[in-house]
């Protein structure tokens, strides 16, 4: 099948409705290694046509309850760009703080509730908390997750779907006292960030994880001066660079049978992969000073092409997110309620942000009355599917001597490395493993 430029629907989330199908031939060769997504289509890109431009950021945050802020901010930036709307510096900073709050919540959740139970051999985080040695750190992790949520509530008014952020700015802003109280809690969480990085490095530096390496096209946003979360250019470790509004030219998608999620490739290059490990590889220099110091201490350095090191990259980003949030609160001082002003103007544009699990692309065309004529979006998971199948092909032959149950678990962990979205990354994935005799 040849590559084609497509519209992408969001369905890539595949919670509960994804299947992994691996067929190993009699000589140990991999005959099939597929991740099939059956999450029912929701057709957001189709029904957004004809909606008013303000409605898109509100509707698209309901594409995903796990990373609503990434979808929301990508959509805001794309629609504002299309109409030539400039937002204030305060709005940019609040959006950044809002997104870092989401990262703190999401990374704490993924590291402890989704990934760690696999490494230490428990079914779930609740089971893990049953071990008296692990209970204290689980308690701290839930506390950090709560802090991320409380920050989201302070800025957005609600812990899942934002209520205050709209096209052009904010309808309400947090007070200085609220932000200072959060800053105190963030400072108190720094120790937890450090412990998490140490624990993650300890888990991922065991066999077989530390030996599984595969060089791939690592794509993320990039900014030489500031760690990219809401803004930056598209960038890869292999020399690709483009403005983020050009993503529809560079990220191509194809529709394959047995999968409701279209597979993405980078034009002229091939499969690509996105997420924290890719961001950290491409932007190590702009991580906070403490995150870089801790990286050295736990023996993590870039380039690193070991997918199981994602948990370490995520922990370093947790440290960085805590540091960045503290800094943003200082810069914001006492936020002021600013008037929201813009005019409808015809235009077309696109924008990319970094969801906790990788780049999230939105954009489209708006007419002079502010009515959407075309809408496009690509969620992070869509980009990782093809690359994940490459991981299966590279790593399963090395693990082929493991018993079926263990091999299946290792394959599930390969999926979870990309934190596709917490729901799909967990045990809902049905694994079929066939060995031909």
């Amino acid at each position: 099948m040849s590559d084609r430029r497509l519209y992408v629907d969001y369905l890539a989330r595949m919670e509960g409705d994804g299947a992994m199908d691996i067929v190993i031939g009699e000589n140990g060769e991999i005959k099939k290694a597929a991740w099939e997504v059956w999450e029912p289509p929701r057709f957001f890109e189709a029904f957004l046509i004809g909606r008013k431009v303000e409605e898109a950021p509100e509707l698209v945050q309901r594409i995903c309850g796990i990373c609503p802020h990434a979808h929301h901010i990508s959509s805001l930036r794309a629609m504002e760009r299309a109409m030539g709307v400039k937002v204030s510096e305060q709005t940019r900073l609040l959006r950044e703080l809002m997104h870092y709050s989401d990262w703190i919540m999401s990374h704490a959740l993924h590291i402890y509730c989704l990934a760690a139970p696999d490494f230490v051999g428990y079914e779930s985080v609740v089971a893990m908390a049953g071990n008296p040695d692990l209970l204290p750190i689980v308690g701290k992790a839930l506390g950090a997750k709560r802090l991320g949520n409380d920050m989201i509530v302070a800025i957005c008014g609600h812990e899942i779907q934002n209520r205050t952020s709209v096209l052009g700015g904010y309808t309400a802003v947090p007070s200085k006292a609220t932000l200072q109280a959060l800053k105190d809690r963030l400072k108190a969480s720094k120790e937890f960030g450090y412990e998490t990085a140490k624990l993650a490095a300890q888990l991922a530096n065991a066999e077989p994880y530390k030996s599984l390496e595969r060089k791939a096209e690592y794509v993320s946003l990039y900014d030489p001066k500031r760690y990219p979360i809401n803004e930056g250019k598209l960038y890869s470790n292999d020399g690709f660079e483009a403005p983020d509004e050009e993503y529809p030219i560079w990220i191509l998608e194809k529709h394959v049978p047995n999968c409701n999620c279209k597979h993405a490739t980078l034009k002229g290059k091939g499969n690509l992969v996105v997420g924290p490990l890719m961001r950290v590889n491409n932007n190590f220099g702009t991580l906070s000073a403490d995150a870089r110091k801790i990286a050295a201490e736990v023996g993590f350095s870039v380039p690193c092409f070991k997918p199981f090191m994602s948990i370490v990259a995520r922990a370093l980003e947790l440290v960085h997110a805590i540091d960045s949030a503290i800094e943003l609160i200082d810069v914001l001082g006492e936020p002021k309620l600013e008037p929201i002003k813009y005019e409808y103007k015809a235009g077309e544009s696109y924008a990319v942000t970094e969801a906790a699990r990788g780049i999230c692309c939105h954009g489209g065309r708006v007419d002079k009355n502010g009515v959407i004529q075309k809408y496009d979006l690509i969620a992070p998971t869509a980009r990782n599917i093809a690359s994940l199948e490459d991981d299966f092909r590279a790593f399963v032959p090395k693990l082929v001597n493991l018993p079926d149950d263990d091999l299946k678990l290792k394959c599930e962990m390969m999926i979870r490395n990309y934190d596709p979205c917490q729901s799909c990354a967990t045990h809902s994935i049905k694994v079929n493993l066939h060995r031909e005799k």
Partner: protein
Amino acid sequence: MTDRAEKPRLAVFKFTSCSGCQLPFLNMETEILDLAESIEVAYFAMAGASQPGPYDLAFVEGGISCQEDARRIRKVREESRILVAIGNCAVYGGPQALRNFLPLEELKRAVYPQPELIHCFPTCQGIADYVSVDGFLNGCPVDHGHLQDYIVSVMLGKAPEVSTRSVCLECKMKENVCLIVAEGVACMGVLTGSGCGALCPSFDRGCYGCFGPSADPNLKSFANLCRELGLTEEEIHRKFRYIVNNAEAFREEAERHVPQPVES
């Protein structure tokens, strides 16, 4: 701790949705470990539990939009003593029910290059269109406090309280300045079910009805108000055909305000 066998068995299921209504369970960070002492989380894929039924209390997120959804919801119904629809998707079909108003073949062609590979129903509906449902908790997303209250009520054997009042009343209780009166905003709080704590009006935004219609909403009067505030028929139509578009009262009111084609 009570004997494991006596603990009520809780289940959480997802259908066509965004997972945002499962998240409130995971956001009970301070209560989650205590909760695990008194109930058994038997099925909750997102949290790693996947024990077979039967279940005492099942919460369902998501609408029904394909054959597999329809098959699964019937099975969940058979296995569950109390079945509760949580959130806009399970109650009404959700934001993606906006697709119900467009032809399926057109939708498939707009999104997929090979539409013949896509199999789904022409509409996304709330679960009550397919099975009997014992309780409904509205919201987009559902409220974390409402879920907790529901669980506690079931454990105590008392009828859960579900408010039928409007957001307007919550706004008055919070002593918010009325956006309709003071700013001329066509706020839907007057006909939207309460439960959010009047969130949007508290942030100086008109309510957009994400908890669905309140009991006995005065739709005609609201439409007249919108006209007085200068809204076009097309704008009134879009107000009702938005986040909660497939609740009967909102769906039918939208049809009474036919959008005019917009010139580009």
